[in-house]
């Protein structure tokens, strides 16, 4: 995923696996990231996404997009989006589609007054 987004021309900071929500948010803050993308295969998305969203709010990261994908049932997606999470992509989602989504989301952010 990181490689695909780099190939699409984005700067990607891959933090590795087993990062805590605090580590993820801190890295994004330090790197002044436009987007936090999470790949969650463990089934722990209903804890991790809301926790990261909460930390982002605490840090004033309202203009940073949080999105992701992985082993996340469709039924859980509305609940995540209520916490401010953007699109959730299922396993096997098109890398082009994901790159397009990120590009458009960031572009919209930078053109909004």
């Amino acid at each position, binding site marked *: 995923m990181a490689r695909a987004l780099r190939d699409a021309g984005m700067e990607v900071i891959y933090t590795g*696996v087993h990062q805590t929500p605090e580590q993820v948010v801190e890295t994004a803050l330090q790197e002044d990231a436009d987007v936090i993308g999470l790949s969650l295969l*463990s089934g722990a998305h209903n804890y991790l996404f809301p926790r990261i969203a909460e930390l982002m709010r605490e840090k004033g990261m309202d203009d940073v997009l949080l999105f992701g994908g992985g082993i996340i049932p469709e039924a859980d997606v509305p609940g995540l989006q209520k916490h401010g999470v953007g699109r959730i992509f299922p396993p096997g989602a098109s890398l082009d589609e994901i790159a397009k989504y990120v590009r458009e989301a960031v572009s919209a952010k930078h053109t909004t007054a």
Partner: protein
Amino acid sequence: MAGLFGSKKDTRPIDVGLASLIGSDENTAIEFWRKRLEMTASVPNEIARVGALTPQMRELTRIDNLEERKRLTKARLIAFAKLPAEQQQLLATARRKAFEVDRGVMDADQKLVDDLLPGLDASVRSAHPKP
């Protein structure tokens, strides 16, 4: 941080989805696992499939109540048997490789599987060859 039997100790909160199954009826548990296993089989990369399967097995071993752990493991075995053969194959391969990632967790899970399989329907037993 290693656990008592050599498995990796994970101090993160338990998987909310799995935790919500505690006390659920059998059909709900089977359907939960069927969807989880389908999605895991759909992960396009083998390493990532192993990475997806292993923590889910780990989460099961974190359920303190043994009877509940057995019940949810049984539901998983039944759900697996309902999957198309191609998905079963992908998951079986990922399961074999998961032993190399976290032997302690997988040995504990296999022990439960070995205890439960003889009591299950032949169609479920045949879907679960010994690793």
